């Protein structure tokens, strides 16, 4: 259908408005991170920095500096925690998903799995806190990995199940007919076929773990285990006079998920849509 002039104007105004609404906050965050400290305290603000100042990034990446040490150790903890939990969650989720998809495990049980992550974390936090405290496991990356595994597991199982469902069952039957065991079939036939799904699930799981704040806030208390979200909350609550520092930490924490999201957009969006809609 042809658009009239008026319709075009309206359409493109909406487009511009949406684009601005979407990227302006991010653009401003980036701008703050490279503005001179004095630019950020002008009233009214100076929108275009008087000079580009990348020194904050340099400081963040310098392990010997105060903020650098805090940032880099948080980055390391975040990568270890999110990465570790993603790997373990997938290792548990794939067999479980296979059971739901091909061994007739009850859907009610899968719903129960999903219900556990839909519950507010405050429901679980205190007994977990007491238990971990009793075993001397507070402030440990391992502890967060265990908790995040449980947090990622239901969604990963669910996504993998949906993906195994659509694989041709005859291929597996053929493997069984040829004498392969279930675990051999999963390893040599199902996993290679499900590789794209596994990658998508792993990415989404990683992003969820990367984003997690509440458990990390409660279970960690120093550089040895604090993850990026907790470190950022600290930065922002602390008596930092240069807001550009906070902005630069924010930008750094956003880069990995943003890059993943942009590069693997198709994967991630289809995973998100499937994950939130299909029953």
């Amino acid at each position: 259908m042809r658009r009239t002039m008026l319709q075009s104007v309206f359409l493109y105004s909406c487009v511009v408005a949406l684009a601005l609404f979407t990227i302006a906050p991010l653009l401003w965050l980036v701008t703050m991170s490279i503005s001179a400290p004095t630019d950020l305290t002008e009233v009214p603000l100076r929108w275009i920095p008087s000079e580009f100042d990348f020194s904050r990034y340099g400081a963040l990446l310098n392990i010997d500096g105060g903020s650098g040490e805090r940032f880099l150790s948080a980055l390391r903890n975040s990568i270890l925690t999110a990465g570790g939990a993603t790997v373990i969650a997938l290792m548990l989720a794939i067999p479980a998903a296979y059971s739901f998809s091909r061994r007739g495990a009850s859907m009610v049980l899968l719903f129960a799995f999903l219900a556990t992550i839909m519950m507010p974390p405050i429901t679980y936090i205190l007994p977990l806190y007491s238990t971990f405290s009793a075993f001397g496991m507070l402030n440990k990356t391992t502890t967060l990995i265990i908790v995040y595994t449980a947090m990622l597991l239901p969604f990963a199982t669910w996504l993998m199940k949906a993906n195994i469902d659509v694989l041709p069952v005859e291929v597996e039957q053929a493997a069984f007919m040829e004498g392969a065991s279930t675990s051999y079939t999963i390893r040599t036939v199902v996993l290679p076929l499900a590789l794209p799904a596994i990658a998508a699930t792993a990415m989404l799981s990683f992003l969820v773990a990367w984003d997690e704040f509440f458990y990390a806030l409660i279970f960690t208390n120093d550089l040895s285990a604090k993850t990026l979200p907790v470190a950022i909350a600290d930065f922002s609550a602390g008596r930092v006079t240069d807001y550009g520092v906070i902005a630069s930490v924010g930008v750094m924490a956003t880069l990995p998920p943003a890059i993943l999201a942009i590069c693997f957009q198709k994967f991630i969006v289809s995973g998100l849509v499937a994950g939130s809609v299909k029953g």
Partner: protein
Amino acid sequence: MPENQILSVESLQKTYGDVHVLKDINVAMEPGEFLVLVGPSGCGKSTLLSCISGLTEVSSGTIRIAGRDCTHMEPANRDIAMVFQSYALFPNMSVERNIGFGLEVRKVAEAEKKAKVSEVADLLKIEHLLQRRPAELSGGQRQRVAMGRALVRDPKLFLFDEPLSNLDAKLRVTMRTEIKRIHQATGASIVYVTHDQIEAMTLATRIVVMKDGVVQQIGTPHEIYNKPVNAFVADFMGAPSMNLMKGKATPEEGHIRLEIPTPQGRSVSLIDRKTPSQSFRNGPQDVLIGLRPEAMTDQKLSNGSALQSAECLLEVVEPAGADTYAVIHLGETEAIARLSADAPVQAGEMSSITFDLSKVSYFDISSGNRL
């Protein structure tokens, strides 16, 4: 006796909830036979094959393969191989690994595996494809690989689940011949499921016709074609199918007199010169008279004594190349006559049709059973 049977299915039942899919199936098969299970969709033929393979658990009954009771055995332990409708090749593996997968699982030594794979590839003429992935193959080539995977282990029994239904018409004929050639070359015992009655007729040494979970008839293609046990089998097997005309059969001294009504008001009257069987003892009765299209023709047939002629109105004339088919309204049905290709006939005209009653079948009008 069961010892020399390669497969025996006894009193097999399969139900899914309230649905009775297989009802008291009894089938036995000698080594080297090519047994085709055929029937319309939903008749239970695929479920039966699936029960034999062990992919589906039976509700009751017994399945023996080469004399061993396999009813509750895992598929892998039954010494069988299966060719799937979708071929079910492993997409992530080369053709060579696909064919050798069963040997790989059984930890057969590399050299022996290689030798066996290449032997089978040679038989199937796919040596040049061994390093390819399934996605790089044509439908017919995939079909061959699937057969190769089944053949390489040299199992007691082969199961084929509608293996040709995903191919185009031309390739289907080629592969049909290929399967027949492999059967003849290897002497393998094959159970083959299809809904295509031509496939059944051309491939089978024996055919099992099924409908609604019940075996209708087991017999050689010749028996099934010429002596169908009921109207369903008569109608299902053969293309075009057997004409089933309603008519009156009157037993007389040494022969049966048939009256087949036409819409024009008069009847076609024929004499079947056979001594009436026991079924016709009770005097005149309405029956279904089964005659295949080739038994209603314009041609001179050799068995003179059984031939009868009658003038019939040809409603539609369909030239089909080698033959010409003519539709004749007879016995409350549209009977099809098979005329010679150059028969000088036209739709709407009366023509003399020769009926060959040596191959006539009679069916009970209500039960459909053969009389």
